[in-house]
């Protein structure tokens, strides 16, 4: 029996079988260690919050025992924990979720099983079916990578911060609906599609913000985009010089009611003390940055600059605000000016700017802009960004004892890329200067990966040398990408694929194909 090998093509379609398989790949992390395996960490936080929802009325959730992992996530996230609590109760495991029990390590595998099953439902399923049905070839192209992002699995299931999959899914859904409206502007069904998809997009995004406050990184571009949409007149003849028209007010009111309504609904159980919720969710005064994060302030706080010693904190806070705004400004301007703009790339750019320049960034915050970035760019750029985000979180994972899992998952990602994109060439192909820069950054991190076990402590006076080297290296990659996005608007696959010529060509070919299929049936 001879074996026929299928010809390899660039795949835009993942079959349901593969998608189900991928949804359960994180099970490989089932019995790994987790954040706080030796003392206390994110696992204990999430376990405590599940216990809170199990044992206490909602009114005391935001004020119970604040010194031991007090609740500091927005309401929707708390409801998510409440669902977990219900499930745990249904399985009869409430004993380990006593509020006084501060260990409960034996519940990790059970919780991980639940998390993986949940993520299959809240991330893989909606993202898969939504993107697959998308009319944008670019979006469908990004699906392959959205289905396997090692860093997302490692942080969510491994590190045990169980609040990353839902916001990522909501980001993808938001961008999907915003693009749906954008592509149909001026078309036959413009008005019907317009309002409904903008409603869906804004409620999805608001839900994501109410799930995780870090999603505010993406709020500026989406707000600007929606505001711009409010000013668009359906009839070009009617468009007046005045900015505020009846149409504008009507659209703005619709969006405002959605956003405010969702917030109110989310806060109903906590109505007695809303200010406490706000204080917990937005803790100011936690520090400029956390551990060795690959952003500007961590870099400026090292030996030659020492910014925190030279400048008073309130000035630094001001600087953070100004730089974040300046860093986002080019993208916001593009969104405001261009009618047929590549929205995903600009949203990702603003997210990156916020990560690089804002106050109190965390390594894990790169997961906020990652889904938008992967949706925006072709596979090589997206793949390199996924690798760089992994590098940014490497030391976080090492603290959790997950470094082998990190390396294993990353190599598996390369295998995945190699299989589905027909070779690793696309990952390291160079056309623009940014491709070379990112490839160099990734290669250097590989070099460090080998150097670390062989020469554990090269300079005794500088114990954090490797941490700083990896953070600096990753910062170089992130900063370079941001600068490239600012300097020349990337010719992304989205804009490329949507040029009319290609669209027409593909249309005719697909038609002829469907015709030929029909004729075969007949």
């Amino acid at each position: 029996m001879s074996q026929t090998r299928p010809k390899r093509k660039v795949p835009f379609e993942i079959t349901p079988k593969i998608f189900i398989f991928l949804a359960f790949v994180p099970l490989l992390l089932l019995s790994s260690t987790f954040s706080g395996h030796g003392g206390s960490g994110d696992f204990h936080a999430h376990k405590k919050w599940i216990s809170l929802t199990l044992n206490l009325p909602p009114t005391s959730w935001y004020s119970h025992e604040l010194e031991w992992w007090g609740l500091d996530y927005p309401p929707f996230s708390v409801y998510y924990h409440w669902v977990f609590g219900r499930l745990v109760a249904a399985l009869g495991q409430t004993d380990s979720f006593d509020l006084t029990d501060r260990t409960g390590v034996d519940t990790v595998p059970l919780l991980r099983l639940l998390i993986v099953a949940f993520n299959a439902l809240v991330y893989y399923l909606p993202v898969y079916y939504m993107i697959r049905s998308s009319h944008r070839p670019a979006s469908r192209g990004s699906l392959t990578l959205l289905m396997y992002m090692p860093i997302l699995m490692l942080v969510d299931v491994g590190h045990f911060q169980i609040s990353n999959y839902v916001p990522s899914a909501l980001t993808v859904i938001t961008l999907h609906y915003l693009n749906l409206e954008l592509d149909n502007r001026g078309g036959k069904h413009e008005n019907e599609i317009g309002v409904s998809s903008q409603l869906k997009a804004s409620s999805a995004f608001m839900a994501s913000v109410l799930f995780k406050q870090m999603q505010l990184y993406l709020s500026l571009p989406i707000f600007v985009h929606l505001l711009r949409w409010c000013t668009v007149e359906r009839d070009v003849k009617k468009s007046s010089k005045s900015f505020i028209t009846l149409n504008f007010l009507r659209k703005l009111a619709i969006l405002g009611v959605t956003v405010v309504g969702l917030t109110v609904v989310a806060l109903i159980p906590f109505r007695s003390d809303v200010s406490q919720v706000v204080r917990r969710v937005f803790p100011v005064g936690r520090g400029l940055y956390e551990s060795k994060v690959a952003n500007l302030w961590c870099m400026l706080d090292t030996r030659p600059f020492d910014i925190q010693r030279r400048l008073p904190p309130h000035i630094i806070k001001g600087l953070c605000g100004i730089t974040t705004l300046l860093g986002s400004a080019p993208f916001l301007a593009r969104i405001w000016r261009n009618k047929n703009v590549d929205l995903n790339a600009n949203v990702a750019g603003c997210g990156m700017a916020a990560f690089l320049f804002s106050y109190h960034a965390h390594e894990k915050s790169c997961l906020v802009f990652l889904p938008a970035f992967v949706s925006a760019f072709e596979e090589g750029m997206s793949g390199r960004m996924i690798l760089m985000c992994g590098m940014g979180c490497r030391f976080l994972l090492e603290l959790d004892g997950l470094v082998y899992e990190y390396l294993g998952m990353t190599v598996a990602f390369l295998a995945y890329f190699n299989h589905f994109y027909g070779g690793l060439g696309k990952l390291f192909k160079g056309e623009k200067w940014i491709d070379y820069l990112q490839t160099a950054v990734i290669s250097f991190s590989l070099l460090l990966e080998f150097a670390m076990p062989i020469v554990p402590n090269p300079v005794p006076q500088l114990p954090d040398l490797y941490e700083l080297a990896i953070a600096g290296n990753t910062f170089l990659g992130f900063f370079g990408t941001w600068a490239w996005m600012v300097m020349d608007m990337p010719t992304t696959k989205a804009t490329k694929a949507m040029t009319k010529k290609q669209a027409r060509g593909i249309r005719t070919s697909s038609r002829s194909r469907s015709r030929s299929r029909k004729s075969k049936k007949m």
Partner: protein
Amino acid sequence: MPPRRSYPVRSPIRSPVRSPIRFPVLGTVTPLTSLLLLLSFSIFFIPHPYISTDFYVHRNWLAITHNKKIEDWYIDETDNVNTPDYPPMFMGFEWVLGKIFDLIPSSLVSSNCVSVLSFPDALDQTTQSCITIHRLSTLTVYFFLYVPTIFYISPSSSPAPHLILNFGLLFLDLIHFQYNTLIYTFYLLSLHSLQTKKWSASCVAFCILLNLKHLYVYIAPIFLLHILSSHVFLPHPSLPKFLKIASVTLSFLLPPWLPFLPSLPKIFTRLFPFHRGLIHSYWSPNLWSLYIFLDRILFHLSKPLNLQPKITKGGTSGLVTSDLFTILPPIPASLCMLLILLFSTPILIKLYKRKIKPIPCAILLMYNVYMLGYHIHEKSIINVLILLPFIDIEGGLEKVFVGNGWASLAPIWGGGNRGVKVLTFFMGWRFYGREGGGRGKYYFIEGFIVFYVLAAEGIEVVGWAGEGTRLEFLPTMIYSVCGAVVNFCLWGDLWRACMKEQTSVTIKKDD
């Protein structure tokens, strides 16, 4: 709010590129993908804390070759449990490994990792860093000896991914801890050179193989008969050809033994330990596991049947014992040898008549040994599995073969992360799948394998088989008895396929 319905979108681009990418099975992936996957899985298992007693065996051998003089290698009994029982060349390999260990900075390895210790001390004093370094050494052999050999053997053809990403071998070498890839390198090299008519090369590789592990003396007749019938006697018997082959063989077979001439009798008692008993402690799924299963059933029926059982130690206690049977007569090693000889003669005759190729012949021969042999270890099934990608057999048969073989290794996967291991097993099996599998009889057997693996693992999860309980033996017994039943079906099928007048088992052609 607008009415809910789906709208046609402006750009009706439905399917720009529709190439249905199939589930990544090994037949469709490139060698690079399989190599990366292998690397990924092995990184996952590097920090794994479990190791079997074989780790202490290899650690002790390395320590002996590292610290003792060459004459004392087989005599030293500081550790009287894990004494060397492989031929001299393997000890030479351990010696080389010791030299490489010397290059590692002492800050990374605990100091007594390579020193000779008595047995219980070795258990206590082994550190995780020592295990990690040893694991890295098996990986080094895997990546720098085995994988290049695979690329040499099949530069572009389909066996490569199947041979590189062999989960059975991966589990065996990394978790159970052995240097099997070293042995399989020469196993594959010798058979492949025999297949491609590189006579001297195949003899050299086979002599090295034999000096690494003497178990392979079972396939020596294949080399003898095939070289005689296809080289020396063709077109007419030629003495120079024979002399050349004989001299090459002897000059590679004998020299490794020279330094050990004084301790030769001792080496031979070590190499052929007939006192160890008919079956290995976990009952590898072959004829004898069914035999002992029958014995156990008769033991429980002894009262109604009015039989008088002997009292023995438990068969699955993990200890190597020679008195196992309560009712049925014990099986001597000579009977096993006789059975193997009986079952192997027809296929060897067929080989001599040049009606079957050496690789299918080796598969059947090794399978005979596995099913009938004396004190056969579970891992011997890999001798059969590793050759399957080279031949064309029905896809379903191969898949069932691989699934059952890997499942029979389950007792040596060890404790800890059991769920992940079972998951890896199923994933690896799914990856392995070849097109054309999964219909008819084999579909049923596949289901049966899934069923018994899940049953055995389920019993452990539920806790019926905890340590010290009455049913402690049950998961192992399920694995070996169910595995033996499946093995008998497959054995019959393989026999039928090989013994047909026009054998349907042929060598796969290169792409």
